[in-house]
């Protein structure tokens, strides 16, 4: 299944998943054959707190249309506090992107546990839907490369 809008354009989505919960949740979605669009590619990080705003901006710069970060639920971080830091950092970053006039839906944080394969799949479907509706990322992209 791939999300395609009317013009045949397909979104490009990067998902950062923490190794302990969300990446395992994605594996569980896989073993449960719970599909989500192939447009979503997962990058494994040890913890949501490893995700630097630079990575997210870089993804957009290089043509991503949406970036989602998944981590353990607050309170369940494998490293006890990583996702709390990630939560603050991402809140700040997303707020700044909003302030710069970037569409709000392009970034998202979701907490997905290792047991939530269904939630992982549902979240990814929903996010892909949002990004497809938002269309191509023009505001954040590297315009030069796209020409």
């Amino acid at each position: 299944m791939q999300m395609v809008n009317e013009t045949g354009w397909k979104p490009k989505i990067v998902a950062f998943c923490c190794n302990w919960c969300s990446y395992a949740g994605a594996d569980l979605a896989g073993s449960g054959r719970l599909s989500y669009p192939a447009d979503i590619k997962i990058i494994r990080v040890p913890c949501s707190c490893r995700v630097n705003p630079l990575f997210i901006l870089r993804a957009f710069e290089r043509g991503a249309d949406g970036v989602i970060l998944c981590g353990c639920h607050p309170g369940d971080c494998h490293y006890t506090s990583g996702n709390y830091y990630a939560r603050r950092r991402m809140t700040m970053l997303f707020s700044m992107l909003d302030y710069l006039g970037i569409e709000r839906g392009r970034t998202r944080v979701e907490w997905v546990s290792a047991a939530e394969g269904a939630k992982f799949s549902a979240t990814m479907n929903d996010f892909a839907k949002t990004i497809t509706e938002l269309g191509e990322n023009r505001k954040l992209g590297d315009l030069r490369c796209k020409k």
Partner: protein
Amino acid sequence: MQLMNEGTVARVVGWEKGEGECDWTPALFESVQEMDGFVYGDYAGANLSKYCVKMNKAEGKTLVVLKPCDTLSFRQLIHEHRLNRDNFYLIGAGCKGMKDESGLLLKCKTCKGKDFEIFDEIIDDEESKQPTAIMDRMEGVTALENETAQERFDFWRNELSRCIRCNACRNVCPACTCEKCVFDNPASSVASKAPVTDFEENVFHIIRAFHVAGRCTDCGECSRVCPQHIPLHLLNRKFIKDMNELYGEYQAGVGEEERTPMTTYTKTDAEPSIVRERGNA
């Protein structure tokens, strides 16, 4: 000067007259004779805290003249171990609001107060205790927040696309004291000296604001020195406003607490989705 004569301090960081009448620049005075060029007054807008970082390892004490708002930067640099309090003699200088050729500086229009956060000695008068703030500090941020996303985008495109990556903002910023900036480091994979793409200046300014978030005292130097007159302080103030609203009032450089809102958390912090739920889309 007396302190220098007595040998208590080895040098003074202050201001001297520059090329224009209203153009006073930071200066280092290493002898009593040199002190003739020392000036203080309406055009001493520059924040000298950043210059102290270089003096931190110099032999003997350095005397620094700090305005009330500058003391916040100085204290913050102590928190970050960039300055050693014992190496400096701090003169707190009363401030009646600083000017440039076009009048009161923006940072003085939104003055944060006249208290000295840290000092050895204060030289001021009654008049310099009067508040100079004539507008709300967050006015500009709020106005932008109230615009539509497209308006905001157009505003920032217009502003940031003028950036020539001269790095003046970075060089003057007391919170930017990295030994080597990540954007200058070829090994970082993100180095960029000049913008190659339309988005790179965006990345630079967003990340710079993010890096100083929680440590920025809102001294306003970035906007003051920008040759392209980009209102960079609006980026920093956005972070300050968000942190104040979401994580409680916080002023960098005040008090003994070394943790900033970005190096702490509570279990009940707002979720990032709050950004989608508030304000103008």
